[in-house]
């Protein structure tokens, strides 16, 4: 069984045989071909490639960090670091008795504001509809925005959240990760903030390296002593 992970580029044959093609692979005859640069993973019945590059493609239920670009009288438009703009209807913020005459959208969210939002709906015919009507969602008042490659977000979270827990515990920072590659870090102490930012950037740069959690841990601890 060639269950091992493999580095692939577009056009590479990942494997042949009766597998279900999942993310970033296509089936051509009985060959499974990678469509992107990444690391291939073969499971019992399926094959996928974890991408190392590429833009964010919205998925329903993803948590994203968006930046307000503009608004109409009925909705805001959010830059969600994707090829599509996020569409946030005003009713979502003002509630059901929203009136386009009485309520001024810029009183709640202005251009440039950062918002934690969830993708409520998205298909190929329309721009993604986002919502902030949920716990932990809404306007972000404080923190630093870090932009990383969206394809490296899973690495930053780590297996069962180990990586992000490591960083949060070592620095006491609160980190909100958007699936679109935008991360907001807030921390009481300036040193913790700097360290957390450095750790996140380190993950972004070294995403393909094994034992990265240990390396990050080492970096966080070594800095703490000096």
């Amino acid at each position, binding site marked *: 069984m060639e269950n091992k*992970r493999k*580095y692939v*580029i*577009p*056009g*590479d*044959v990942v494997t042949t045989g009766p597998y279900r093609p999942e993310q*970033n692979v*296509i089936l*051509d005859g009985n060959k499974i*071909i990678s*469509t*992107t*640069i990444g690391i291939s993973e073969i499971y019992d019945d399926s094959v996928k490639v974890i*991408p*190392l*590059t*590429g*833009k964010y*493609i919205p998925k329903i239920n993803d948590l994203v960090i968006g930046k307000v670009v503009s608004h109409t009288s009925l909705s805001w438009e959010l830059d969600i670091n994707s*090829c*599509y*703009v996020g569409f946030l209807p005003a009713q979502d913020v003002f509630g059901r008795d929203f009136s386009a005459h009485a309520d001024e959208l810029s009183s709640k969210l202005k251009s440039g504001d950062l918002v934690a939002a969830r993708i409520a709906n998205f298909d*190929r*015919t329309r721009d993604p509809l986002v919502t902030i009507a949920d716990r932990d969602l809404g306007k972000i008042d404080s923190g630093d925005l870090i932009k990383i490659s969206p*394809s490296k977000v899973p690495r930053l979270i780590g297996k069962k959240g180990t990586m992000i827990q490591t960083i949060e515990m070592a620095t006491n920072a609160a980190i909100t990760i958007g699936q679109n590659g935008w991360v907001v870090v807030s921390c009481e102490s300036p040193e913790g903030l700097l360290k957390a930012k450095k750790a996140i950037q380190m993950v972004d740069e*070294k995403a*393909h*390296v*094994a034992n990265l959690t240990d390396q990050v841990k080492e970096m966080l601890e070594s800095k703490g002593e000096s």
Partner: protein
Amino acid sequence: MGGRDTEIVLLDENGIRCDGRKVDEPRRIMIKAGGLKNADGSAYIEFGDNKILVGVFGPRDVHPKHMSNTDTGILRVRYHMEPFSVTERKNPAPSRREIEISKVIKEALEPAIMLDKFPRTAVDVYIEVLQADGGTRCAALSAASVALADAGIPMRDMVAACAAGKAADTIILDVNNEEDQAGQADMPIGYMPSTDKITLLQLDGVLTPEEFKKCVETGIKGCKIVYELQKKALTDKYFGNGEK
């Protein structure tokens, strides 16, 4: 075509070409993925004395809006030669030739790119020829393919390109500027190596059916050499440290 410069010996009695290559030997090729920070993907290629830089943006919003397609994304390619890329200053305005090359490169890349995944968006490819020495369309196509992969745009396969041709009654690989001017035929080929499909085939000159066949075979051999280098360029950038 037609032997403008008759002084030059294109192929000597030992089978060595005017720049010292054998008949089936390509020029020195160097490809580098990445390099431009502001573009989503980029690549730089040196193909003999050709020097070409490619930047890719996208998928992104289409402007002007009326160009967008609700069923699929669109691909836009601009091939441009710098004024200093040739010996006599080239007018930077797009020429007839540049418009043609933009079109053929676009059509050579389209079969490889899965644009249907991004409806209402555009992928823009900007190709800047910094120095030209014959065979820029092949070099540009090879580099564009690396830049698209670097941008993370889903592709069915890479596209490698190399020219073959005929000079001094012999089929040669990778036609250079002199051989293009004084030779008998020039055939640029774009090729998808893993799926074994040709995406670009042009021919300037006259070949017999046998020569044509041999020319295509020779060209594909060249494409495979280019493909190995494309692969290396991407592997070096993304898996460079050699660690897993």
